[in-house]
């Protein structure tokens, strides 16, 4: 199991144990992290699971692919560390990953 931390917009921290191979979005939904909507269910077809990846983790998590970049056009206050959480797969190296939920979803 891999530990993930979500920081909601109001600062509340949610620490969850995630299975490798699942997505950061799925674990947020399963643990009722507020502010992650995931309207399309993980098809990379909306921008409502937008998160900011903690600066210490951006290199390991990696850059969005072209399709995800396209969807990020619909998100709110996109930053260089913005990702759609449905496109981040949990794996051993991400143990301890911290993501922050934006003020609102697109």
């Amino acid at each position, binding site marked *: 199991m891999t530990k993930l931390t979500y920081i909601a917009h109001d600062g509340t921290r949610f620490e969850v144990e995630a299975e490798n191979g699942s997505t950061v979005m799925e674990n947020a939904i399963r643990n009722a992290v507020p502010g992650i909507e995931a*309207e*399309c269910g993980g*098809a990379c*077809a*909306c921008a409502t699971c937008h998160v900011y990846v903690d600066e210490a983790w951006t290199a390991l998590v990696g850059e969005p692919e072209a399709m995800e*970049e*396209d969807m*990020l*056009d*619909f*998100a*709110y*206050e*996109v930053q260089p560390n913005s990702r759609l959480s449905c496109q981040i797969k949990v794996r051993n190296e991400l143990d301890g990953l911290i993501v922050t939920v934006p003020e*609102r*979803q*697109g």
Partner: protein
Amino acid sequence: MSDITHTDVLIIGAGPVGLFAVFELGLFDMRCHLIDILDRPGGQCAELYPEKPIYDIPGYPVVGAQELVDKLLQQIAPFKPGFSFNRMVTALERLEGGGFRVTTDENEVFEAKVVVIAAGGGSFQPKRPPIPGIEAYEGSSVSYSVRRMEEFRGHDVVVVGGGDSALDWSLNLQPIARRVTLVHRRPEFRAAPDNVNKMHALQQAGALDLVIGQVSALSGEDGALRSIAVKGPDSEVEVACTRLLPFFGLTMKLGPVAEWGLDLHENQIPVDTEKFETSVPGIFAIGDINWYPGKLKLILSGFHEAALMAQAAKHVISPKERIVFQYTTSSTSLHKKLGVAD
């Protein structure tokens, strides 16, 4: 006075479940007409995830979403359904002598003996961008589509987005607007390269502005927009704007379904599990839009619901006729309807 189109069954929504309903209804000789807000059949399969594989359609270990839609269209072709695309059903009323009248947002009128609501998550509508306070300007300075280009003549038009709609309208409105500014988050565009090149050519000629950044604030009063603030990578700029056209994709909204006098359960339509009929006799609801204890939002559940609904719909249309259950494998009369030789 518009002409009225008559059909046995009017199906609202041309997603996979609406399409398969044509097949099940067709086996009982009911003619169908489908109305959908999208410009093509397939619903979410076509709009949200056409390239995605689906793994839980019986008999197909894997099938692409668009491929499934194409096969359904092939399967229902013998029944020659009618289609109206780019239309939203706005009104559904019961007729005094039985049956229903359905009106679209383009004021077309349909009359049907039975109505089937297969509207999935509701209708796809333009997404409101996450810009604080935008609601106050909607309907006056902010619009999500262009119905009449003349309304933009002489205005400071700002188009937001990087897809085909954003580029199309930047180019189309450029000759008549006072100034067109295209705002996009990044220098790369999703739109067709040809239009992106045309836009850059106008920009280089000084006939159009391109600003890279995200709209962060709107200023104006009483619904009349004056300018917008665009936050770029390093700085924030103010752009004159009296007409704003944001293109942020589509989202699903229940829409007018809520106003048709049907009972609702958390934005879904409760039905019984024998006929899949709503609280109004003669109006059925199948697929993701309905609700009953144990409901699963699966395409295969919608297919099953369509089959049972068709039996009940036949009974509404021909109450005296005895319904004979037949298999497509062996029934010569069904083979005739399907146009296959025995």
